[in-house]
């Protein structure tokens, strides 16, 4: 059996997530305490006590999901369950890198906290939206985005999350996103779902956040991964010669190729995938659908 751990990203969060595990397992409590101390927050308060709306704020969401996944990993560690390869969706790549000892738990937590703050606070003015297009090929969605941008002078929309065959998330200005949703529906998309996110994530509009994250990364110690970690940017594993800091700073402005990450893990012989963390479905976190 070859095990791969996969870690969720923003959108999977649910108020109260992981509370039963926190209550039952001392090692989970210990992870929360270590992260609380490292980032000077109460993750218990953010995750278990505050409203779903507060948890949905990017600055809270990212660190809360990271903490829950790291807590579960401690249980798996105590059960002797290890992964041969790991990958995460967007934010989840930080969880994967922390599991692989690229960062310490504390440094990983500090980075994730800062990433969430930057992605929340350095979104340019505008009316932004993201949407999942379900039932069209990747190229078809990219073509529709390009068409909308070509036909409308100031339109901005990009295909940004290639989650799996037939499911692509787009990101950009609300009007352009809605136009793509309409065209995609007419072109045969099974479903188009607007996502609850606050910014044009994984596009060049997050350039300021990316540059600031690069500065943060300068102060972080990085080790070589102890297990194979698959990168979102191209679906290949991190290599010793990779500039991890550069890759992570570019991560917030580049598309996420999660589908390719899974393909690589299957090609490496991974036959058992364990999703570690909250898994609220994309359909349940939709804001509205057309």
């Amino acid at each position, binding site marked *: 059996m070859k095990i791969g751990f996969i870690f969720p990203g923003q959108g999977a969060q649910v108020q109260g997530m992981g509370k039963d595990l926190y209550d039952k397992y001392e090692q989970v409590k210990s992870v929360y305490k270590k992260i609380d101390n490292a980032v000077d927050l109460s993750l218990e308060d953010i995750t278990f006590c505050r409203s779903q709306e507060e948890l949905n704020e990017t600055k809270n969401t990212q660190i809360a999901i990271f903490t829950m996944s790291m807590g579960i990993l401690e*249980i798996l560690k105590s059960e002797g369950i290890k992964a041969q390869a790991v990958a995460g969706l967007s934010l989840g790549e930080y969880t994967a890198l922390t599991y692989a000892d690229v960062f310490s738990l504390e440094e990983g937590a500090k980075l994730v906290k800062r990433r969430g703050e930057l992605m929340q606070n350095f979104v340019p003015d505008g009316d932004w939206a993201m949407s999942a297009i379900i039932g069209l090929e990747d190229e078809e969605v990219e073509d529709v985005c390009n068409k909308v941008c070509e036909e409308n002078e100031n339109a901005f929309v990009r295909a940004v999350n290639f989650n*799996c065959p037939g*499911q692509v998330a787009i990101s950009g200005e609300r009007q352009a996103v809605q136009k793509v949703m309409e065209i995609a529906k007419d072109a045969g998309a099974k479903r188009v779902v607007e996502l609850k996110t606050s910014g044009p994530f994984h596009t060049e509009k997050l350039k300021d956040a990316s540059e600031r994250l690069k500065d943060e990364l300068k102060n972080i110690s990085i080790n070589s991964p102890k297990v194979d970690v698959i990168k979102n940017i191209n679906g290949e594993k991190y290599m010793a010669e990779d500039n991890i800091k550069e890759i992570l700073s570019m991560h917030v402005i580049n598309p996420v190729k999660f589908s390719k990450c*899974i393909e690589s893990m*299957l090609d490496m012989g991974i036959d*058992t995938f364990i999703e570690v963390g909250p898994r609220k479905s994309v359909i349940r976190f939709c804001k509205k659908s057309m």
Partner: protein
Amino acid sequence: MLSGFVKKVCKKKNMEAKILNIEDEKTLKNSLEELNKYNGREEG
């Protein structure tokens, strides 16, 4: 959410994989049982 993505990638590649998730006590218990069953079969 990610489990569904894995299923679709497996289908596209015509490959099979066991897909588990751990998000609470119930799914933790189920996943550990599954992993133990699998290990038991391999050892046996």
